[in-house]
């Protein structure tokens, strides 16, 4: 027997609070399961939101929650940018690498067929920018084909340590489309010490040389630095150095160190608190490029169809944000 008075209690208690506020309504006597169904049906009919049924009561939000993705900057909408890990092996073994890349790491390459299909599906899914990263992409013998598959579809950014621009690899670079490709080269400091302490002796010198080669070849170069919190005081001289290299201010990117992969310190980036950037590796689709080697942020091992993977990331992101908003509402009421 359903406690019919629950409906009357729902009307009275939700009317007593403002739109957007939450209220707890005791379910009263009776089997909680049909009561919960009755509450859900009432909420659906009257434009209120059932947040939870627990401890013998229903938690209701008066009115409907706003779309949790409203207010997000357009570029932050999941699926606006698509990251691809072309490979995981690298000529360096940086001590904070989030992807655990090194010369000993297995390649795990996406390959031209998947990259080509991803680029095509990305256009259909509304992606506006592609980003290729690794590992070190220039280790791949067919990198120019991979890049062409992307730049033929969308504006593309290629992340590299900039250290391998010679011989055949330089020839591959020269075959890339300067109009639709940006090279993002990693450089952590204005002088060799800090950079080399994480990335290896001599790496700073070769990275700076790589920046100059890429510029001389006519490419737009963005420089991205990974900066541990303790080195914030070095920002100003670093920007001055990049200015001297002719790197535009908008192309001087400073990233915080993430406690992911090989890093032993840095920002803790739990999936619930991280705005996603859909990332595809040979192993599947991940929440964010910073966690592309961590199973806790694997969304699906099915890469295709890409649109479904993007939709799943959006759904989970909406869910996390809605829950966070609801929690923010609950605490003042407790």
């Amino acid at each position, binding site marked *: 027997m*359903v406690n*019919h*008075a629950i*409906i*009357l209690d729902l*009307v*009275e208690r939700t*009317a*007593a*609070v*403002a*739109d957007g*506020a939450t209220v707890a309504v005791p379910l009263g006597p009776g089997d909680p399961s049909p009561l919960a169904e*009755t509450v859900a*049906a*009432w909420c659906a*009919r*009257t*434009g209120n939101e059932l947040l939870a049924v627990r401890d013998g009561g229903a938690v209701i939000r*008066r*009115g409907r929650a706003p779309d949790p993705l409203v207010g997000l900057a357009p570029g932050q909408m999941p699926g606006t940018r698509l990251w691809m890990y072309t490979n995981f092996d690298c000529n360096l073994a940086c001590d904070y690498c989030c992807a655990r890349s090194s010369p000993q790491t297995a390649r795990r390459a996406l390959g031209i067929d998947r990259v080509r299909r991803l680029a095509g599906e990305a256009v259909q899914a509304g992606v506006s920018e592609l980003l290729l990263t690794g590992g070190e992409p220039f280790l791949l013998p067919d990198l120019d084909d991979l890049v062409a598959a992307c730049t033929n579809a969308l504006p593309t950014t290629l992340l590299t340590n900039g250290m391998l621009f010679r011989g055949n690899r330089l020839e591959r670079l020269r075959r890339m489309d300067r109009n639709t490709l940006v090279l993002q080269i990693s450089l952590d400091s204005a002088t060799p010490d800090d950079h080399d302490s994480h990335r290896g002796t001599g790496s700073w010198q070769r990275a700076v040389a790589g920046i100059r080669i890429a510029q001389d070849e006519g490419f737009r170069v963005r420089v991205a630095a990974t900066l541990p919190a303790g080195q914030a005081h070095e920002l100003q001289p670093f920007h001055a150095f990049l200015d001297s290299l002719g790197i535009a201010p908008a192309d001087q990117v400073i990233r915080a160190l993430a406690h992911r992969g090989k890093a032993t310190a840095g920002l803790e980036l739990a999936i619930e608190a991280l705005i996603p950037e859909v990332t595809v590796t040979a192993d599947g689709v991940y929440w964010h490029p910073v966690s592309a080697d961590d199973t806790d942020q694997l969304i699906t091992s099915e890469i295709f169809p890409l649109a479904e993977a993007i939709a799943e990331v959006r759904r989970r992101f909406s869910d996390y944000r809605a829950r966070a908003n609801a929690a923010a509402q609950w605490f003042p009421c407790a």
Partner: protein
Amino acid sequence: MSAPLIVGSVAYTPNVVTIWEGIRDYFAGSPAEMDFVLFSNYGRQVDALLQGTIDLAWNTNLAWVRTVAQTKGACRALAMRDTDTVFRTMFVARAGSGLGGLEDLTGRRLALGSRDSAQAAILPVHFLTRAGLTPGEVDFLRIDSDVGKHGDTGRSELDALRAVLDDRADAAAIGINTWEAIGRDELMPGALELFWESPVYSHCNFTALPALSEERATPWVEHLLGMDWDNPAHRPILEMEGLRRWVVPRLEGYASLFEAVREQQIGSRW
């Protein structure tokens, strides 16, 4: 630029602040800007209208009838919600009660809402009289749980329904808005059923006195009627206030309440 129109409203729900701030924002920059003042009951609000503290009162139907009486008909209604033109009182009983019409209430107990609620007390008695039932033939259980708000909180109507569910009354008279809020008889299968529905009548309106000139009132009304359900900026306010569009008043819809007030000798003041 003239001073903003001051609109009075009774604070019967925490949502009124959100609603009226939204309406005020909608009028900002228009030829007829407005602000609002909230009252705790309709008596205070109508007093403030008569004293000139406010230019317009967002009145219930009983507050309108009383303002007409106190101004000897000099006040005027400017606009109402589309839902105000088709308001109804619903007579409900336990499912399977066998009640088929008002006449079946003879010798039964009818739960009524607050005594100043047009939809849940004054008009139900009027409809019973029209059905030929004489005083005393129906036993009234009066539940005055929100007097002063004219039943706007709906609390007394919910209490009337509780009385029916608890077998303290055979039937209850409630407004169509409360009937809709509980999901009619669809969310409580086997609990309640509707056995008589009143003719439509008018409910709330914006009431003005002659002191408010047409030059000031007309642009305000024109802008109000321009609120658009399909405009995402307007929609939340319309949803919270319970309408799809603002309309010109349907004054003939107040005839039954004027009659009821006269029959029941309800005073023009509080």
